[in-house]
């Protein structure tokens, strides 16, 4: 299943946030969206999953999602969004219960996704007992449980320290290599973008427009932390963004 944005613009009241965004998200690829803060990249992600409506333009789903897919467009949030009163297991079963999946079938799915995210020993733990990295792995496990056609990741690693971030990037690469998934990955971290993106969409500051789309052909599992060619790409991206970021930083916050 592909996703197409065509001519998407958005404004809050008279305040233009996004201008004429057209973008194709092909199946089985990870598309990273980078841009200075306030460029509307998170808003764009909310349009993609139907959590918000753009003022103009449309978001299209092309082709049907696979039949075993419970929730085609599934988010992974920056703040994890785990229910603090439910255990790891309970947080995952939450998203299955509404599909009538209970008992042995649910146990099977939960055991599988916990194994894939290396959380099998923590099924009974409460979120407060987990570190930030583990919480985000629980959120990833929860997303995997519904078998999404497209994963919408909103700065998923931004709340974590840099070591944990490295580890989780490896985990994401492993997950993708085993079963390629489609993902839109919003981040302000260029290192994450060059590690995980098949293509990287660079946005300008507000009103957000697409400045350039950079493609990376190197397979994900061959990319390493500190690869010279990735560094090169990252430097190039930073060149693109530098002025924008500086200008965005100097703007008054509009609330």
């Amino acid at each position, binding site marked *: 299943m592909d996703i197409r944005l065509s001519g998407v613009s958005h404004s809050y009241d008279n305040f233009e946030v996004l201008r004429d965004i057209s973008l194709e998200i092909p199946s089985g690829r990870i598309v990273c969206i980078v841009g200075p803060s306030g460029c509307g990249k998170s808003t764009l992600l909310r349009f993609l*999953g139907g*959590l918000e409506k753009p003022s103009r333009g449309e978001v299209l789903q092309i082709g049907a999602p696979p039949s075993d897919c419970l*929730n085609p*467009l*599934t*988010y992974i*949030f920056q*703040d994890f*969004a785990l*229910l*603090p*009163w*439910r255990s790891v297991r309970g947080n995952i079963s*939450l*998203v299955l*219960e*509404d599909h009538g999946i209970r008992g042995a079938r649910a146990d099977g799915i939960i055991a599988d996704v916990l194994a894939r995210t290396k959380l099998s020993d923590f099924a009974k733990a*409460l*979120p*407060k007992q987990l570190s930030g990295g583990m919480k985000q792995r629980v959120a990833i496990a*929860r997303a995997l449980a*519904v078998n999404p056609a497209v994963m919408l990741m909103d700065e998923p690693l931004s709340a974590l320290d840099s070591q944990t971030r490295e580890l989780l990037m490896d985990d994401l690469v492993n997950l993708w290599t085993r079963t390629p998934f489609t993902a839109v990955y919003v981040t302000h971290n260029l290192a994450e973008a060059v590690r995980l993106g098949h293509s990287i969409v660079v946005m300008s500051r507000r009103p957000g427009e697409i400045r350039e789309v950079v493609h990376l052909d190197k397979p994900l599992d061959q990319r390493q932390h500190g690869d010279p060619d990735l560094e090169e790409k990252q430097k190039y991206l930073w060149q693109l963004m530098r002025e924008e970021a500086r200008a965005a930083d100097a703007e008054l916050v509009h609330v």
Partner: protein
Amino acid sequence: MSDLHSPSTAARQVTFRGGGFAPSSPRWIGVAVFVVLLSLAELGTRQGWISPLTLPRPSDVLLTFQELYASGLLWAHLSVSLTRLLVGAALGASLGVATGVLIGLFSYVRAGLVPLTAALFPIPKIALLPLFVIWFGIDEGSKYALIAFGTFTPTVVATYGAVDNVDRSLIRMGQSFNLSWFSIVRKIVLPGAMPGILSGLRISLAIAIILLVAAEMLGAEYGIGAYILEAGSLYDLERLFAGVTILSLLGITMSTIIGQIERRVLSWRQ
């Protein structure tokens, strides 16, 4: 700067200034306060520097309490009072929680009922007792209604405040996983509002006890309120204090029960 390493500079411990502002409550101190106050009263009344007209002797109050228990009247008073309290508070609290949740979820209900609650909240409910007597009869009905009405308004205010404070990002998460509206309310909104609802319930139940006594002072044969009123009009201070002690114990029990519920239901909190 230059004398930083000179031997003449005296080394001094950095003064600690980060203490306080973190009260804990050692268990025995609360008991100690009671014991000290009661023994002061006992000593004073025995030695005569507190006249028995001002304050009854605590040991006499205890004696009265024992008599009350032995005569079986304690249970007669307590059982009707507890029934009134339970029925009234359960009615008021459950209606209050339901209304509060509706206000928290629906714009029209909010627009319509928030001003109404604000108008009802400051009314001293005791003033309405005559009205309730006309509406619900002089018997139990008016007492249930008074207690229910008294617990209703604070519960509503606490509940919709608690629903408003539920983390929106969790609700967003529920929507993003296509949970049904009903599931989101039951599995995300209600548990998320539970801490606020329970702390509101503490206040509501204390109000319920106050109103219970007020209701029983107007036309009741049995009940702790009636017992206190009777003792008061005879200036029987021992019985008056025995009655007041029962009320205090009732309050402590209520608050302990809610504390237990909180510990069980809210064990997920830090």
